[in-house]
């Protein structure tokens, strides 16, 4: 039961993390209409993936692994670009967002990027969904203790959904504009995970064949087959024994992005400081 639980958890978390973050963002902006569309998109992605999984099984075809890895790489890169845009946009408008929440910039963020966020959630589920669907179908034809295998996988995915829900609730509670730095740093880490993940799937897609030497052996911490490893790999995108390409991708994104977030903005704002702050609903 544990082996299939671990895989279900890891694959599920990789998707529910993004969905939870997107849902929290949309909720914070008061875009409940967009939130509803996001859930529809997520449901559609799940249906598509299950359909493909069952269809492949019925046709007795195997999943075209390389093409699937290509799709996962492209989707990961698109999600990475979207999150980077979110971080940059937040940074540029953080001051404005803090001072007046009804500001045009805040409204523009809500209107303009809602569809982009919905797309990101849809693609995140699609990305992990194919692999997970095929894996689920395989558990149904398990050679030993089928009930335990299926049950484990289902509980793993359910646990991932719970984690996504917790991220959503937590993200909604926190005033994203006030705690801009913390929020942005979390996004930086998630995006770094996507970068490492994209490097990994790019190799499996046959696109990236350099830098595949073992960079470090983290299997003491990220012990393959354990729940801890599933969470670390699912959330941070780090493999148990990452190769150089993955490590360079992670560090190469996180370091500049974190610096960008933490770098103090040098614009002198003495006039604003002497003016009493606008009274607005907190």
């Amino acid at each position, binding site marked *: 039961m*544990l*082996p*299939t639980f*671990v*895989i279900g958890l890891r694959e599920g978390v990789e998707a529910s993390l993004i969905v939870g973050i997107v849902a929290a963002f949309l909720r914070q902006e008061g875009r409940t209409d967009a939130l509803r569309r996001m859930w529809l998109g997520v449901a559609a992605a799940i249906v598509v993936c299950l359909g493909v999984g069952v269809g492949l099984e019925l046709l007795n*075809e*195997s999943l*075209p*692994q*390389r*093409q*699937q890895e*290509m*799709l996962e790489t*492209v*989707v990961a890169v*698109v999600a990475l670009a979207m999150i980077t845009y979110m971080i940059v946009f937040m940074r540029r408008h953080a001051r404005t967002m803090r001072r007046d929440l009804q500001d045009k910039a805040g409204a*523009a963020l809500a*209107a*303009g*990027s809602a*569809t*982009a966020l919905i*797309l990101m959630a*849809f*693609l995140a589920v699609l990305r992990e969904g194919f*692999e997970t669907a*095929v*894996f689920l179908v*395989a*558990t149904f034809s*398990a*050679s*030993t*203790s089928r009930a*335990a*295998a299926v049950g*484990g*996988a289902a509980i793993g995915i359910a646990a991932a959904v719970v984690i996504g829900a917790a991220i959503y609730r937590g993200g909604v509670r926190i005033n994203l504009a006030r705690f801009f730095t913390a929020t942005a740093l979390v996004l930086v880490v998630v995006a770094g995970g996507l970068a490492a993940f994209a490097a990994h799937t790019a*190799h*499996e897609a*046959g696109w990236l*064949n*350099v830098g*595949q030497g073992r960079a470090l052996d983290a*299997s003491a911490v990220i*012990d*393959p*087959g*354990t729940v801890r490893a599933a969470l670390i790999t699912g959330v941070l995108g780090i493999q*148990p*024994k990452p190769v150089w390409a993955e490590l360079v991708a992670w560090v190469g994104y996180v370091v500049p992005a974190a610096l960008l977030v933490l770098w103090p903005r040098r614009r002198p704002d003495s006039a604003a400081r002497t003016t009493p702050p606008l009274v607005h609903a907190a």
Partner: protein
Amino acid sequence: MTRCPHPAHPSTARRCAARSAALALSVVLGAALLAACGGDDGDGGAGAAGGPTTEITLTDEGCEPAALQMNAGAHTFHITNEGAAGVTEFEILSGERIVAEVEGIAAGLDRTLDVRLDAGDYVTYCPGGEREKGTLTVTA
């Protein structure tokens, strides 16, 4: 195809353009995937059905048997995980390039992999095992 509304603000137009591009991209991706599903994998990797079946077992050591020899042509690998906790994948490598792979084979599950192999020296790779890598020699 959705049309971008008359831009009230340059950044709105930019965002709308980005949105349309993203939508177009996903449509293209979907089409590409469907096409790939139906089509033949041109470089002679995974997808070729038939051929003799080789039994592979995933253990804590890695892929068993550690050394394989076979003739060039279509092969079917039947991979079974009989209880290895950290080993759930089977890959065939040619240098750094992945020729074929199967993922998600948890303990108690089994999967098949159809590959067409040309003559050469390959490596079988099961990440997470003690030994991890084995040899696969394909003769013409």
